């Protein structure tokens, strides 16, 4: 389902909800309410969504799906998806207790997405950007060939259009089912970012709950600026693995966004409600039309009509 379809179906759902006044099923009832993971408050799901999935009581930042994330960040109607139909093959014919192919279908059914990242061109307060958002709800946000390829192409798109690149990461790490090819995506994305960097591009990496493993150790940590969401857990190795290895208790706030800030790993922690504005202001400091590949003024300027290939 690409973004247009999603908006359409959301609209349809809205209308349905308003038109049909039948008693709710248990499932429907549960979907109506969400309990805050942090303060245990019972929140009306619709309100929670209206509040950008942030608990109004304790400011806990719930995970946000890729499409909602884009909806929150991009100017309305500005997002044009890239590589919407790309799907992974099964290069290893991987089978654990279930075939990889089967697990992929399952992931798609659950998330309503084709893969764990959605990428495209959008505008943020009128400023064109290359925007990617990962979805932890799809296969744990794991990076296989498709995630690697889409992020790489997004960086290439940003390079050729000389526009800022923004990627919201949320991932458990590399996708084991694609074996060594998953690992190589770390190098592939990093390499594309190197080229973008040398072309003078501005890459803002946003770390959302949770960001781990091969995603952290590649594109997520390579931002010119790195922004984390409050409370997001971010690291390379998982907390439990570390505790088993070093046989000692870790600090309670270990690997939280705030802990990373204290340890110099992120530039800032920004509440979701301020994120779009902050991005917009940061971008205003970085005029990518001013610096060219060799650090010299660029010949051309970006015209917003020429953003996509």
């Amino acid at each position, binding site marked *: 389902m690409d973004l247009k379809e999603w908006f359409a179906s959301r609209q349809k759902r809205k209308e349905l909800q308003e038109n049909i006044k039948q008693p709710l099923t248990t499932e429907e009832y549960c979907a109506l309410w969400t309990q805050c993971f942090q303060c245990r408050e019972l929140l009306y799901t619709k309100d929670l969504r209206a509040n950008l999935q942030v608990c109004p009581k304790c400011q806990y930042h719930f995970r946000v799906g890729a499409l909602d994330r884009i909806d929150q960040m991009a100017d309305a109607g500005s997002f044009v998806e890239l590589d919407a139909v790309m799907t992974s093959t099964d290069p290893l014919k991987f089978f654990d207790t279930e075939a990889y192919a089967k697990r992929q279908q399952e992931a798609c059914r659950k998330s309503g997405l084709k893969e764990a990242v959605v990428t495209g061109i959008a505008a943020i307060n009128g400023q064109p950007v290359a925007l990617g958002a990962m979805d932890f709800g799809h296969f744990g946000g794991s990076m296989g060939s*498709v995630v690697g390829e889409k992020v790489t192409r997004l960086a290439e798109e940003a390079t050729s259009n000389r526009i800022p690149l923004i990627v919201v990461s949320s991932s458990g790490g590399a996708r084991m089912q694609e*074996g*060594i090819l998953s690992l*190589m995506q770390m190098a592939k994305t990093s390499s594309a970012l190197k080229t973008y960097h040398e072309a003078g591009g501005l890459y803002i990496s946003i770390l959302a709950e949770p960001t781990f493993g091969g995603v952290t150790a590649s594109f997520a940590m390579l931002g010119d600026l790195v922004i984390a969401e409050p409370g997001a857990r971010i690291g390379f190795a998982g907390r439990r693995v570390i505790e088993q290895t070093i046989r000692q208790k870790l600090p309670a706030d270990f690997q939280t966004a705030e802990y990373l800030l204290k*340890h110099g790993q992120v530039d800032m922690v920004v509440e979701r409600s301020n994120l779009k504005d902050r991005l917009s202001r940061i971008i205003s400091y970085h005029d990518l039309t001013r610096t060219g590949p060799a650090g010299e003024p660029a010949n051309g300027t970006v015209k917003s009509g020429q953003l996509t290939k």
Partner: protein
Amino acid sequence: MMATNEKKIIPLEFEQPLAVLAQQIEALERQLGDNPDLEGDIDRLQEQYTQLKKSLYVNLRPIDHLAIARHSQRPYSRDYFAIWDPGFIELHGDRTGADDEAMVGGLLTLGGIKMVAVGTQKGRSLREKQACNFGMPQPEGYRKALRLFRHADKFGLPILTLIDTPGAYPGLSAEEHNQAQAIAENLFELSGLTVPVVAVVTGEGGSGGALAIGVANRILMLEHSVYSVISPEGCASILWRSNDKVSDACQAMKMTAREILQLGVIDQVIDEPLGGAHHDYQLAASNLACAVVKQMTGLMKMSKEEVRRDRQNKFRNFGAFTEV
């Protein structure tokens, strides 16, 4: 450097039948003085031993390769460097507070080519093992490697990396010092180097911690080495939720040298001495040297821009997907 001639080679579990035969032969040989008729039996057993040995090593399961790759007597980076170049000039430190012994590097001459060599190091004695953190570098180790990569790039020295690591270290200070960023930065910077880079997986190629020195123009693997996105133990515990399924995980992940060659990720599998590199350091080192020098020589004909583009294109093409 361990002198294999003087030290008894420790048999692996799957090599037990061989070890039993060897013991029998030895026992008979001791009786040979008293009973010269045994010579025929010995010859027969010797023949059997040779046959078994050959067949054993052509039908290895992935987990057997893993066992050889992890063999405690397997030659490590320092062993290769010492055999290749007694004048190896080691360079230490990340300049900002640490000299990670799990990452060794310096100026090496191999086949007449002057290069910067960097490798992970596991350590031989218990003390060494601890000093080397069992071959798991800290962020400081990756940053030390990066410093050497930049040095090589500045002076046009080609780079050789040897990879034998369970992976980056899952520790408190490693996270605090941002090992994710250290690894990512190495991937980023390696991809932009204008000198040839040849990487060889000599033992365990453990996920991001291995890749951090593995973004190369040519990637080679020793015959029994392995390379995987996660340790088979980790994979088994996550996907099978069981520690008994390590062999299945090894099988499923396609982590042996030949499988990875088939996947197109590496360029060459280098033969090891029969039974594994630990049976003959000199031969292993020599096989490795030949392969490295050949690849390096080819790469050194490229211009700076070509060599960089070659490496970037290589990694650009990795991935399996459809767009329909």
